[in-house]
Structure formats: structure tokens, C-alpha cells
């Protein structure tokens, strides 16, 4: 019983993280019917930002040497969380703007600037430059230059492009974006795993029944719940949220009603990105997992399964799916099949897609003939 409850707690912790990421999938799927395969990598970027912030950018003090720095560190840690969310929100918007929007509306000459930034990336990373800030400045400057150089090429391409609304093309583009983030991350971050040291005091409580609960677990759960509540409020009670729901219902009709769909879609990506960034930062700072540029892939896929489990497009579904996913994984990890821990997500996915392709809370759709 005790072991069982311990698994439940572990499962809930894991599940709330999956739910955070799954929300990003579900939001995007809801408005665009697009599987944003790169979402798991946005989560990874959140963790990487957290790593840099905790080890280099922000003046965290070693808790063992300065026990009274605890409060200051907690404050900084909240700053890290916000920073990761902001970076990932911007990243989410950038991905949408430069990969998915051209797919939706056709390539535009302005998109050249994105490709300029991408082209400048290897140069900025490869060049022998001192320190990250210098690199960043060089990257931005080169990116702008490259962008202007690419303008004529892109405008030429844009004119002869056949637009395709195929969801598969969107998926392949998403996979491409995912690879760009992973291998770009590999260049910046290196392939060696890093982990965030303990920056906030961690304590473990024993609650009646002999179950141990750590402050990190509680923090993950509380912050996740808070963020989910905020998301719910945004979606249900703000103008933007209403516009999102309108687009999810019928994008063409929303357009005709004067909703600026592009800006709302960008906002959706920003929301999803922020949630994934928060998830990444929480995982990195509080569970001290090894961070590698590829580590977003698996949680990403599991969260995707969670989103499908709850019914893509459904926000409560994503939370429910995330928790179920976390619990399922916790139990498999605690059983004699622990080697199959990572396969459980796929097994659930396979069974689910075959049995009820629209998810637990999703609406069935039939093809119009």
C-alpha cells in the first residue's frame, strides 16, 4: 500500500509535467489541427534556459556555503521560471511565424529573415568568439545581413510556390523544426548531459502512512496547477481566449468575423510555449534530470500521447491525459516491467488510436462525402 501510494505521488508529479506539455499540443491542435511535433523540443529549450540561468546568468549562491541565501535563491528561481516561460513563448511564436504560417498562408518575402537567422546560426556557433553574449550579438547581426541577402531568393521562391494544405506536409515541417531545435541545441549545448545543481532548499516530509513527499514534488504540482488555472482563465474569460475558441470551432468563419487569426494563432503558440518552458524549467531545476538537446523528444511524445488520450483539442482532456500518462508510467516503472517504461506511452497510443481515435474526451468526426 505504501509503495502503491508512493507510486501514485510520483505519477502525479510526472503527470502534472506531462499535462503542462500536453496543453501546448492540445492548444495548437485545437486551433490548427496540427501536430506540433517540435513542442517537446520547446520543453527542452526551457530546461536548457533554466540550466544556463541557474549556473551562469543569475547570481545564485551555493546553499551549502550560504544557508541564509535560501530566500533570495527562491526569488531568483521564480525569475528563472518566468525567463524560461518568456523565452519559450517567443520561441513558440517564432516557430509558428516562420515555419507554420508560410505553410498556411504561402511563403512571403519577409520569411527570408527567419532563414537568414537560421543560416547565421552555424556561423555564430562555429566562429571563435568569446562568451555567449558576443555570440548572440554576432548571430543577430549576421542574421539580419543574411536575411536581406536572402530576400530576393525567397521572393522568387514564394512566387512559384504551390501551396499545400496537407496536414502531412505540416507534420513533416514540424518534424523538421524539431530536428532544427535538437541539432541546433546540440551545437550550442553540446552532447554531454548537464544537470542543474540544487538552487532552492529541498526538504522531504513524511506524511502519515510512511509516504515521503518532497518540496520539489509539491512545487511542481502547485506551479503546474496554478499555470493550468491561469490558462483556463485566459481561454474562458479573455477576448483572446474567446477568439482562440472561435478559431478552433471554424477558422474560416472566425476570419470572416474579423478575427485576426494569425495573431491569435501566434498567441496560442506563445501560450503553449510558455507552458512547455515552465515544464522544462521545473523539471530541470527540481528533479535534476540530465539535460541533453535530445531529452525533449521522449517527454514530448509522451505528452503528445497524453493529449491524444484526452482528446486532441480538449484542455481538460489534456490535463486528465497527462495525469493518466504519468500514473501509468509510474506504475510500469515500479513493476517488473520497468524496462518498458518508455514503451508504455507508445503502447497506450497504439491501443488508443486503434480503439478510439478521437481520444477520451474528444468528439468523433466523420468524413464528409
Amino acid at each position, binding site marked *: 500500500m505504501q509503495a502503491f501510494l508512493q507510486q501514485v505521488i510520483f505519477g502525479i508529479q510526472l503527470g502534472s509535467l506531462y499535462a503542462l506539455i500536453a496543453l501546448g499540443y492540445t492548444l495548437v491542435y485545437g486551433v490548427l489541427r496540427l*501536430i506540433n511535433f517540435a513542442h517537446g523540443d520547446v520543453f527542452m529549450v526551457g530546461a536548457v534556459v533554466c540550466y544556463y540561468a541557474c549556473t551562469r546568468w543569475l547570481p545564485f549562491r551555493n546553499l551549502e556555503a550560504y544557508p541564509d541565501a535560501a530566500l533570495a535563491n527562491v526569488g531568483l528561481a521564480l525569475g528563472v521560471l518566468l525567463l524560461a516561460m518568456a523565452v519559450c513563448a517567443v520561441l513558440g511564436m517564432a516557430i509558428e511565424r516562420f*515555419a507554420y504560417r*508560410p*505553410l498556411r498562408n504561402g*511563403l512571403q518575402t519577409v*520569411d527570408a529573415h527567419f*532563414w537568414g537567422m*537560421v543560416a547565421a*546560426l*552555424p556561423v555564430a556557433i*562555429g566562429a571563435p568568439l568569446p562568451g555567449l553574449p558576443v555570440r548572440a550579438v554576432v548571430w543577430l547581426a549576421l542574421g539580419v545581413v543574411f536575411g536581406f541577402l536572402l530576400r530576393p531568393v525567397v521572393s522568387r*521562391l*514564394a512566387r512559384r*510556390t*504551390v*501551396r*499545400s494544405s*496537407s*496536414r*502531412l*506536409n*505540416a*507534420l*513533416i*515541417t514540424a*518534424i*523538421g*523544426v*524539431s*530536428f*532544427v531545435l*535538437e*541539432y*541546433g541545441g*546540440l*551545437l550550442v549545448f553540446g552532447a554531454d548531459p548537464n544537470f542543474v545543481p540544487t538552487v532552492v532548499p529541498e526538504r522531504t516530509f513524511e506524511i502519515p502512512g510512511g509516504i515521503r513527499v518532497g518540496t520539489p514534488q509539491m512545487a511542481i504540482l502547485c506551479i503546474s496547477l496554478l499555470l493550468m488555472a491561469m490558462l483556463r482563465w485566459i481561454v474562458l474569460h479573455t477576448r483572446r481566449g474567446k477568439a482562440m475558441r472561435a478559431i478552433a470551432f471554424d477558422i474560416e468563419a472566425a476570419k470572416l468575423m474579423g478575427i485576426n487569426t494569425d495573431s491569435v494563432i501566434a498567441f496560442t503558440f506563445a501560450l503553449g510555449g510558455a507552458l512547455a518552458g515552465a515544464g522544462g524549467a521545473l523539471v530541470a531545476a527540481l528533479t535534476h534530470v540530465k539535460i541533453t538537446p535530445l531529452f525533449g*523528444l521522449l517527454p514530448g*511524445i509522451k505528452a*503528445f500521447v497524453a493529449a*491524444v488520450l484526452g482528446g486532441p483539442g480538449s484542455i481538460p482532456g489534456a490535463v486528465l491525459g497527462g495525469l493518466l500518462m504519468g500514473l501509468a508510467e509510474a506504475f510500469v516503472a515500479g513493476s517488473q516491467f520497468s*524496462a*518498458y517504461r*518508455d*514503451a508504455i506511452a*507508445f*503502447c497506450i*497510443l*497504439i491501443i488508443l*488510436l*486503434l480503439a478510439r*481515435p478521437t481520444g477520451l474526451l474528444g468528439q468523433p468526426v466523420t*468524413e464528409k*462525402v
Partner: protein
Amino acid sequence: MIGWAVSRLVGVTVLLTALAFLSNALTESLETYYFLIIIQCGIAATLAVSLNLINGITGQFSIGHAGFYAVGAYVGAAWTMLWRPRLESTLPILSIGSPTGDILNLLIALALGSLAAALTGVVVGTPSLRLRGDYLAILTLGFGEVIRVVLLNIDAVGGARGLTGIPTLVSTGNLAFFWVALVLIAVTVLTRNLMRTTRGLTWLAVREDEMAADAMGVNTTRVKVTAFVIGSGFAGAAGVLYAHFFTGISPDIFGMDVSIMITTMVVLAGTGSVTGAIIAGIVLTALPEAFRFLKDYRMLIFSTTLIIIMLTRPQGILGHSELGFGSFFRLYRRLSGLRRTSSA
């Protein structure tokens, strides 16, 4: 009928002999490094053409092809390393070391490997192919990973370490190129011949509009599963060749990135184009070698290229068309025509 059979037989014999000679010549004359690249290209092209049958021709988007490649490799290697030795004492013909023994065992491994991969294809394909588009894609990705994790957990085939020291049956008698080319030609000819018949058109019809094809009497389920099974079978054969050439396999080398790489080849070339798939398979395998100095940037460049292709030419570089001498001629005419108009 008899005339046809004889001419086919003669044709195949001539082809086999020519390939064997070519294989010998290449092995003798090429540096090992370049030879390895050629073999890798051949295997990659086989994988691309076999996936093209599923993705390009019947339009059922699968991105878990590495799973079937893995099944072939493991089953083939299991024959040579685990099952064959047990039968060897009773059937001495199965011992390796002599050219005939090696070739016989390789043929058995090829048969078992592709059969096992094809069977896996039935198991995966029959339920999955009810789904379409991105859901099918994700599902096949899932199956590919499950296959890999299962292999990871079978101790008999080495778990995470995999199998090493697989006898290089493929290289016996300098025939490595021969076998790789043979499998590639087999899957290519199969596709091309099929596309010349009305039956082939029904496969394309499934890609274009499944419901309309169904209404026109095409058994769409059967078409899709057949394509899936044949594609998987050939991926399995490629796996057997890989295992018996590179001598070591582990679950790592059949990961999601390999699946996505094969998919990239098919998509980049233009879904449905067989020649495109071959070229993409070769280019995407050889290019990274040529650009070794870009080592860390390779995958970044690939993925960026993939996105750009999707944004600018979603039907792939060749689209649905095939590359032949005729298209070079047309290209030349177009180019010279362009030059004339621009100078005017």
C-alpha cells in the same frame, strides 16, 4: 508464354552475371572507405524505395520504417548466429566458411529476415491502416519505437549492446555490392512493373482518393496492407544485408532518427517517384560523407532543407514524376529556352 519465360530467365542471368563481375571489380579497385559508402548508399536507397511504395504510391504515410529494418536485421542475424549453429550438426550444409555455405546461409537469412519483417508489417499494418494522415504517421512512429524497445529487452539478442561479430556473409566472394544492388533492383523493378499495369493505377487511386477508389471497386484495405507488407519485407532484407556486412547491430542504430531520415528521402525526392527515392537515398547518404567538415552542422542543414522543401515545393523535388533520359532532355530544352528568352 514459354518464349517470355525464357527471355526473362536469360535477362535475369545476364543481369546477375554482370552484377557479380561489377561487384568483384568494385571491391578490388575501390578503397574500403568509398566501398563502404557505396554499400550504405545502396541500403539507404533500398529503404527509400521500399518506403516509397507505402508513402509515395499508396499514400499511407508511415514514419516507422526503421522498425521493419530492425526486425530484418535482427532475425537475419539471429539465424546466422543463434539458430544456424544449432542445426549445423545435423545439417552440415549449413556451416559457414565455404562460399556455397555462406551464400546459402545468406539466402536463408534474407528469406527469414524479410519474411519476419513482412509479418511484422501485417501485424502493424492491418490495424493501423484504418487510420489516415497524421494519425497514421504518429501511430507508425509509435510502432517503430515499440519494436526498438522490445529488441532492447530481448537478452538473447544482446539487449542494449546488440549483436556483434556477425559473420560477414555478404562480403563472401566479393559479392557485397552484388547483394545490395540485387535487393535494390528487385524492389525498384517490382515498383516499376507494378506501375505499368492497371493494378498499379489502383494503388495510385488509393493515394489520390481512398473513398472514390473504394467506390470504384478497389479493395483499398488490401492494397494498403499489401503495399505495407511488401515495403516492410524489403526493409527487412536491407536490414539483413546491413547486419551481415557491418557485422554489428544494436537497437540504437534503428532509432526514430533513422525512420525520419528514410521519410525525408522519400519526401524530398517527391512522394511516388521511384528514381527520386533512389537518388535521394544515395545523395542523403553520400552527401554527409562528402561534407564531413561540416560534421556537426549536417543534421541541422538537412532538417532546414526539409522545412524549406516543405514550404516551397511540398510535392517534393521531382513531384510524382520519374527521372529518365527524357527529363534531362526536357530540362536541357527548358534551360536553353530560358536563356533565349532572357537574352531577347
